[in-house]
């Protein structure tokens, strides 16, 4: 009589496992919809919008609001205006949709970080992340979502995979790189058996999820021998920018090899500029923008069986909060409970020349907008982070209310 392990070696038992209906495996039964991949870039600390996607001329702001450049430092790129630190992104601007004046309802980094993982306000550390939700519909990819960058426990979510925290050494992905094809085959067999056994435990939601996570890891081990090994190219950056280049390349590797539906990448530079705002913003964005431009360019260049990575990937980038519009006594800027979000790629309505939704006033405060057009409107309403999360879930075919998202679905952000 053959035992299960021997059967697994022949691939029979694992065939049986994969042949089970998706519903029985705990996966959503809906048809996959929306962008194939989602990348969330969390620009930790608070990018100063006036240098980035919300540049102003001095005549447009109230007295005291810090606009430390003249109008000729603002770059016009299609429908977008780019601040002096972000002009390096002008060649990609036609694909950008910028949402200004998005209320995050916190002026605290930690609450902001909890919110960015969920794209939603008023959350707790028990609330699953938005990529947990979307990643549950992972189609034929092994992993739902992967987290990269200098993350902390605030970025943790129940389906977490990744890191590192503060150390760039001995990361989970580094270790994964070191295993060989036979080892992956062994691990795949072992985890297939674990998954099948756990699926037979007494019925509970935790049982379903543990079995699902085992299947994700088993699928990863099965896929790894066919994956191009990760090799970091020299993008000409060092220090923190070098680490970000590595994280961007890791993201591209995950997408190119169709290994995960979502990637949450935390970019931890010095944007939290309570002191010397101009220098810190310049240094941080000066490190970020070239690496981000290269990432966007690689998304356009690289392809997999599903087409161009750019066409199948939605990139969402923004900070957990923004900078107060007036300098404090240390030439710094404190916290401001609004942010600007950049969306680019699959499913996003950026028009032919880039698109700007929302507007800010003379104190950089978000103004009411029409929910039909996203343009300023006196009788409109303020945009909130929850609106973005709700829209993203809707875009991906989920009913947001079933996941606690009670924001407005911003149809203007979607490609018709």
């Amino acid at each position, binding site marked *: 009589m053959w035992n299960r392990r021997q059967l697994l070696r022949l691939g029979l038992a694992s065939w049986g496992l994969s042949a089970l209906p998706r519903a029985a495996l705990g996966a959503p039964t809906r048809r996959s919809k929306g962008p194939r991949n989602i990348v969330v870039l969390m620009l930790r600390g608070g990018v100063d919008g006036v240098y980035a996607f919300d540049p102003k001329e001095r005549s447009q702001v109230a007295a005291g609001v810090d606009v430390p450049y003249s109008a000729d430092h603002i770059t016009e790129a299609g429908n977008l205006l780019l601040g002096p630190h972000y002009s390096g992104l002008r060649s990609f601007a036609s694909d950008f949709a910028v949402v200004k004046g998005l209320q995050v309802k916190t*002026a605290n980094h930690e609450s902001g970080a909890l919110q960015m993982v969920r794209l939603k306000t008023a959350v707790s550390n028990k609330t699953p992340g938005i990529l947990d939700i979307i990643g549950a519909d992972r189609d034929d990819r092994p992993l739902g979502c992967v987290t990269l960058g200098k993350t902390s426990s605030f970025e943790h979510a129940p389906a977490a995979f*990744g890191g590192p925290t503060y150390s760039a050494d001995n990361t989970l992905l580094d270790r994964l790189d070191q295993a060989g094809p036979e080892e992956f085959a062994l691990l795949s067999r072992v985890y297939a058996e674990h998954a099948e056994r756990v699926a037979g435990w007494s019925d509970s939601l935790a049982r379903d999820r543990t079995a699902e996570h085992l299947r*994700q890891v088993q699928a990863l081990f099965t896929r790894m021998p066919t994956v191009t090994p990760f090799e970091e190219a020299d993008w000409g950056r060092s220090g923190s920018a070098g680490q970000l280049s590595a994280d961007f390349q890791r993201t591209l590797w995950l997408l190119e090899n169709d290994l995960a539906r979502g990637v949450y990448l935390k970019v931890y530079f010095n944007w939290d500029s309570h002191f010397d705002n101009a220098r810190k913003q310049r240094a941080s964005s000066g490190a970020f923008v070239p690496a981000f431009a290269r990432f966007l360019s690689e998304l356009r260049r690289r392809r997999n069986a599903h087409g161009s990575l750019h066409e199948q990937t939605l990139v969402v980038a923004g900070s957990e909060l923004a900078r107060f519009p007036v300098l404090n006594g240390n030439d710094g800027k404190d916290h401001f409970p609004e942010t600007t979000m950049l969306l680019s790629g699959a499913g996003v309505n950026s028009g032919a020349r880039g698109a700007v939704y929302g507007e800010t006033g003379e104190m950089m405060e978000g103004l009411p907008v029409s929910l039909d057009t996203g343009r300023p409107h006196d009788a409109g309403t303020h945009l909130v982070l929850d609106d973005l999360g709700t829209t993203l879930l809707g875009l991906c075919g989920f009913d947001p209310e079933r996941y606690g998202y009670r924001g407005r679905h911003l149809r203007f952000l979607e490609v018709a």
Partner: protein
Amino acid sequence: MKRGTLLLATWALSCGGPEPASDTVELVQDLSMLALARPMDPSEAKEHASALDDGRIELGAYVDQLLDDPALGRVARRVILGGGEIVKPNHPIPSHSVLSHFDHEGERIYSLRGRCVPSTAVDVLPWWNRKKTIKVCPSAYRPEVLRDDEGRTCGASTLAPGADSPCGCGPRLMFCLKDDDHRDEMRNSVRSEVTDTLAYVVNNDLPIEQLFLMNGTVRDRDAERIYVRSRVLAGESPDLMQVDGFSEKPRMASRHDQVDGHHAGILTTPGMLYGSDALRGVMRNYYEFLWCAAASSSGVTTQTVLGLDAVDLREGDGWQQLAGMAVCTDCHARLDYGMQFFQGYPSSTRGIDFRPGETTAGTGPLYNLHIGDPRGEDTLTPQGFARLVLTQPEFGECMARRVSDHVLGAQVTVEDYDAVMLAFEDSHSFRTMMRTALIRFADRAGSGAEEALSPRPGLLEPSESALADGAGAFDPTTQVRLSLEVAQGVDNHCAHCHDGIDQMDLTGGVLDRNLLNAMLEQVAFEKMPKGAGELDPAARVAFVEAMIDVLWTEDQARQEARAFFVGGQRAHPAHTFNTAMAAVASEAGTGKRLSIRGLSSAVDAANQYVSPGLLTSAALVALDACKRQGHSGDGLESCVAEATDPSVLILGPTGE
């Protein structure tokens, strides 16, 4: 049954000894991992299990033996302070100034800003070597510069060596480190001061308040030097930096008070004081450790912030407005009035020192929930702060919650929490609280309590108990009809705090759909009622399920909502990362394990679940450990299968 149990059973049979119940062996291993963060040697576990089974030792006495192990002190660090790093790499502890060097004619010359003309280098006796001078470039020395024109002291993160910083290494090179290894050693000393002091209090079974109150800490000579540097900056002699007579090895020692009430246990250690770059962040950490008051800032709008009419909310005089303003007061009354007790410690951007001249004289108030919730007044010193904070009920409740969460995880009930709270009130001892929780865990393990979270029969049937008789005009797009279960849940669990809010009026059996949605989320993810201390997990699940039933009528919608709100998309609770990886390596037969850094390793016990990251790490650790043990072929596969069995990672019942 856990895999280790199978191995033990085989061993017992082959040796002819009495075989302990597999559940008892499993329990012994779980208790060891919870109390000491390590699995027990399988043969030892079997012996203990046999002794428990045949009554040679009572459970209480066994738990007492377990808690005698000094490893309890290390576990306490994680329980009380969480899993985060004490000294983060981006914090200037003790300084960002690391010397580089070049050699000239056989002599080593140290510099901070590139090479100098060798003949200009000067001889300096550095603080790290009391006998031998070294050669230092003049621009790296600058012994006369202790601070800049703006009052920032050298060592501040903003005065790291650069063209625009006036600082060198200062007298005795006290702002500098010899090299990167030296910096790592110093950081370890600073970190160890916190963890060793914590272990000292726990292993000596002192009242847990002492950890935040006593003058002394356990520290070595390097950690002492950070305190001494502060005294030098306040005007004492640089020769103090030699710390003559201070033990090179860590030991319990008192600290010099620069002002009365200066020190308060680990709250005034550099490792804790520079956990954030400004006092408000430090206070946020402290209230989280001491009162479990996690960051919950939300609801603040742009208009609120602009309405403050202040431009310096972080360090300037905006704090009093912030602390009293609606919405902001919920956090800032606590944080900002708390900060006043620590005046004298500038932000790390301004200096790593204590400034007696910047302390505030007299007494000041402490607040908790908001400006209308005062908690007494004491002298404006760290000691005064500690005295006030530690005598509030939130401190004991927090300690009880942390211990309950660590040991009982998602299964913790109100009764468990009350028992641990009683242990705190009776003893103020971490060890006694752990003992109570571990015994309750053991009792739970034998009773199959996980059934409480099993699906409720008939869940997917449409709700038939609506209470909407005579509800008037009902709009199904914006309103929901309440069931008896939801109405009772609101009445039992919400009304005592939210009574009087019109929207919560249940008369007529109809509620705003958005409000019920918000309530569902708050209850499901433990924002309301807060934590396990106020609502049993089973009661929470029942309340959440009742709300789902009235919000959605279709099976698919209910199923999806239930997986999200009831299950939280979470797998089984797991041991903390390092404990879990130690267990995997132990199952593979080795104490050594592959080092893996990842997000899972930063997560606290209450949020550690069987995630894809944890499972992948377990696989790689097992593979490495089994190969180290010389396994290959089928033996390797069997070894990896045993070591990665999910039950090794899962905390508590598996449902197998």
